[in-house]
Every structure is written in C-alpha cells, then in structure tokens.
C-alpha cells in the first residue's frame, strides 16, 4: 500500500535485512495514514542509533540531534507549537541509557508527545554491547561473563511515575503495533510505546521466536486504569504483556500549564514583539 509518507525515490537504508526496524517503520507509517495526519503538521525527533535513523526513512520533517536527547528537543518543539503532532523515536540505549533522566522528566512533565522506543535489548549500531534492557546473563564482546545488572524496566518505571499512557508492542505484529501507536498518538499527554524487536545481527538470544514465545496480548477484560493492576502487569517477566498497560487522563499536559498559552493559543512563531507594550512593561517595572 502506498503512503504519503513514502519517498518518491528509494532511499538507501542502513538497517540489516530482517531488522525489526523495518516493521516498526511500517507500523508507524500505517498509523500516520490511518489517522489521516497532516504531513505538514507532523515532526519526528530522534537521537542516535539505528532506531534513531527511523525518521530519515519516512517522508516527514525531523529533528535528529544527540544521543539520548530526543525528548528535550521533542518537548521544545511541542511547547513552541502545540498544533504539531510530535513523535520521539529512538532505541532502548538512547532512550533509557543516556536519555534516562529525560525519560523520567518527560513522564513528569506530561508533554503531549508520543515516545516510540525500539527495544532490542542490545546496542546494535555499535555492534552488540549490553543495553539498559539487556537480560541477565546476556554475553557480549564487552560483557564477556554475561550481564549481571538488573535490566531496566521502562514500563514499571512509567507506571511508578503515574505516566499518562504506557504500552508495549512487538515489531513482529505490524497490525497490533500500528493500533497501539494510533492509540498513543491520539492520547493527550505523554505516551510511551516500548516496542520489542529482534536485532538479527547482534542479539542471538532475544530472537523473533523468543519474543513470540515470551509475550502475550492483554485481553479486553484488562482495565488499564487500575494502577496497582498495571504495576503487576509491568513487573511480569516470565511472559511480557503486550498492549496498553496503563492509562491516566487526570494530569494536564505541559503545554496546558505554560503561561504563554493561557490567553493566546497561537504558536510562538506567529507572534511578533510589541515594542510599545515592552517599553510600557519596562517603565512599569521601574516605577
């Protein structure tokens, strides 16, 4: 199916054949198309890594900056123009390692952005070192005796911080992943979508089959508004639940809290400096 987010000419993609990134890109583009998003009002933001190249391969505006720092840029873009749909997309190393503090504060700020994290439990761009989500015992050329750190659990952390939307998907299921991404984008407030994906070159443990065997979808009876129940789901690791794990619509968004939009909804670039008003303001302060 063709998409308005395809390029006219084929682009040179740096990913390995069989990489989970391809199906995540497919799910994202389908979600954009089915939501009928206006391409001119859409911005993708990424950090550094193979996942962070995602926006290069989708025909949209993007801001690709520093390792771990997709969230600050995404927050600033949304805050300077709340009319934009802003998607931050990066990998588990970028988002939970270097970007760990930004991740925590993005949840607390509750900026209305969608944060898609490709989670393959390995640093793929740099050829296979342990990432924050690598499982215990995972051997790499650096972690020669196997990983002995507790794996970072982004879903549990997000629920602990009372995040507004927390979901987990699996790249092997494009349709289901697309539906979860659509819910995340339409959700008002910060939305985390942690997407399990195999790294076919540098993670021979957490393979396509491993994810298939180690996950299951939450059924319709599951209530994502129950925080205690959600935390229970978040810490399950014999089999990982997929779907929307936690929902909390109680908190206002970061943009709604900004004084600059209290009386005027115009994005900042449409505003000009009123010099007379500024001079009056300075005079009043001096009086």
């Amino acid at each position: 199916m063709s998409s308005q987010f395809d390029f006219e000419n084929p682009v040179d993609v740096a990913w390995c054949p069989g990489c989970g990134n391809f199906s995540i890109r497919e799910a994202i583009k389908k979600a954009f198309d089915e939501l009928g998003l206006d391409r001119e009002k859409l911005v993708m933001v990424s950090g550094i890594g193979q996942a962070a190249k995602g926006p290069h391969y989708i025909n949209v505006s993007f801001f690709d900056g520093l390792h771990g720092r997709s969230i600050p840029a995404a927050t600033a873009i949304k805050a300077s123009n709340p009319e934009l749909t802003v998607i931050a997309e990066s990998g588990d190393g970028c988002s939970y390692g270097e970007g760990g503090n930004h991740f925590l504060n993005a949840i607390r700020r509750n900026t209305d952005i969608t944060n898609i994290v490709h989670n393959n439990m390995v640093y793929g761009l740099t050829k296979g070192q342990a990432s924050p989500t690598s499982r215990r015992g995972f051997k790499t050329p650096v972690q020669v005796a196997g990983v002995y750190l507790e794996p970072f659990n982004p879903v549990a952390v997000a629920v602990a911080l009372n995040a507004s939307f927390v979901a987990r998907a699996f790249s092997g299921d494009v349709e289901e992943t697309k539906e979860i991404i659509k819910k995340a984008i339409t959700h008002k407030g910060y939305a985390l979508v942690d997407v399990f994906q195999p790294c076919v070159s540098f993670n021979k443990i957490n393979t396509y089959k491993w994810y298939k065997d180690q996950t299951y979808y939450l059924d319709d009876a599951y209530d994502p508004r129950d925080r205690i129940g959600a935390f229970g789901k978040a810490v399950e690791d014999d089999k990982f639940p997929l779907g929307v794990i936690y929902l909390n619509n109680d908190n206002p968004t970061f943009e709604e809290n900004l004084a600059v939009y209290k009386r005027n909804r115009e994005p900042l670039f449409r505003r000009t400096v009123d010099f007379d008003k500024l001079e009056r303001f300075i005079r009043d302060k001096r009086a």
Partner: protein
Amino acid sequence: MVTTSGGGFALMVEALSLAGAHESPVVIHLAQRPGPATGLPTRTEQGDLMFALFAGHGEFPRVIFAPGSFEEGFRLAQRAFYVADRYQVPVILLTDQYFINSNYNLPGIEIERGMERNHIVKTDADYLRYRLTDSGITPRGIPGYGRGIVCALSDEHTEGGFITEDFGVRTSMVDKRWAKMRSMQGDILPPVLHGPKKYRHLLISWGSTLNVVREALAECGRDDTSFLHFTQIYPLHPDAADIIGRAGNRVLIENNATAQLGAVLKLYAGARVESKVLKYNGMPFMLEEIIDVIKKLP
C-alpha cells in the same frame, strides 16, 4: 535562550556543537564564576573566555559578546538574538558574577527598533533546510509553516538534511557554515576607545571591567593614556589590530590568571601586549588598584 554558569555550560556543551551542525539560532548567557569545578561559586572571575570560544567538538561559527555596563547588557542581549536569528549561529553573552550581582540606577532605556527578529520563512514543497547559498545563510523554515519538509540532522547532511558521507558535500557544507562568518563582517562591533585619540599607553580590557577602568582613567586625567574596551570578543573587529598597534605600551587588565583576551588578541589580531594586570582571587578590581596601575605608568 539559556542562562547558565560555567558548570552548567560545561554540561550543555554538546548542544552548542549541535546548534553548530543544525545551524540553530541559540543565545547563551554565561555568567562566569571562578573555577575549576565548583571553585568559588559566589565570587567572580573572567575565566571562561577561552572555554566559550572553543567549547564544543568540531569547527563551527559562533559569536561572543561581553557587556561592560547594564546599558550594554540590555543592548547586546537584544543584538545577540538578532545575530543568532539572522546568521543561524550560537551567540554567547559573557558576563560574570560581579556584573550580574551589581546594582545601579539607569536613565530610561529606549528599545532599539529595526532589529527585526523574525527570520522564519514559509516553506514551499521543494524546501531544502541546508540549500547552499553564497552568504552561507539558508532561509530558515520550520515544521508547520508552509508545505515543505524540514529536516535538521546532526550528522553531516545534504542540502535536504539527509545523512551523507560524500566528501564533496562535506566540504561544501563546512564552507557554507564558515561563509556565515564572512557574511557577518558588517555586523561586528568595534572595540570602544576611551580617552585621548593619541596615546602612548593603552589600557585594554573586556566585559565587566569597563566601569572601574573608565573611572580610574578619568580620576588620573593623564593625556598620554587611553583605554580600549571590547564588547565583541569574537569575531574580532578588523580595526582592533590597528588601534592596539598605535600604542607604545599596552597594558592588559583582566579578572583572570592567564590573560585570555590577550591570547585572543594575539591569535586573531596579531597584537601583543607589554604588561598584564591580572586578578584572580575571586574579587573584582577595586578602583584604587587600577588608579595605582595608571599612576605607575612611565
């Protein structure tokens, strides 16, 4: 805009380099305090000039201002935004703890008009964020304004903002970024000479030492001594070399241990100084100290 001090600036330096690559306008107010590390966090120093000048990996243009008075602080802050927006470069406003913790009364300040701030353009469908131009400046589009796709990338990029390792494109993008330094030649502020137009001795300083040196000079009333004050440190005004060269004896006055403006003048104006008055105990210069310097000039 970000306002910070040495330790905070050190943490954010990778974003300065990013602004260089993205060609993002950004204004950084860096209020210097004595380092290294936490140093004397409630005291003053002009110790971060070289840090501001060379901070960030890679080579990219930047502008550094250092106001000497509150009036200059007000005007240079306005100018910093104008220069950052117009040339799409990071601009650093260097002050120090002494400057920002001082108080005095000002006459009314009229805001300078005509420095239009809005350099953002509405994009067409074929917009290229890094289109090559003679001036090095590409009209700046943003997402959500026009039909164009705006791609900002920290990797070396094509005109459209896509990743590349093409050596020719790399060279042309480096040249494009540096072309902006040539384009801003007409916007560089010259150093300001206080005192007689003809001088044997020339006192030289920058930033917050303006008022103390000016007052000491007036107090001493010597007709053979002038004072040259820099508010734009980088890029340096081309007249700097000549003004400094006309003096027989040059005395640098800096609130640091290593005469950092002296190094900048040597590097970019080929100027040398005969003597240096340096203070780095955490306190600003006292009037009496500068008067003493001027009185002892031969």
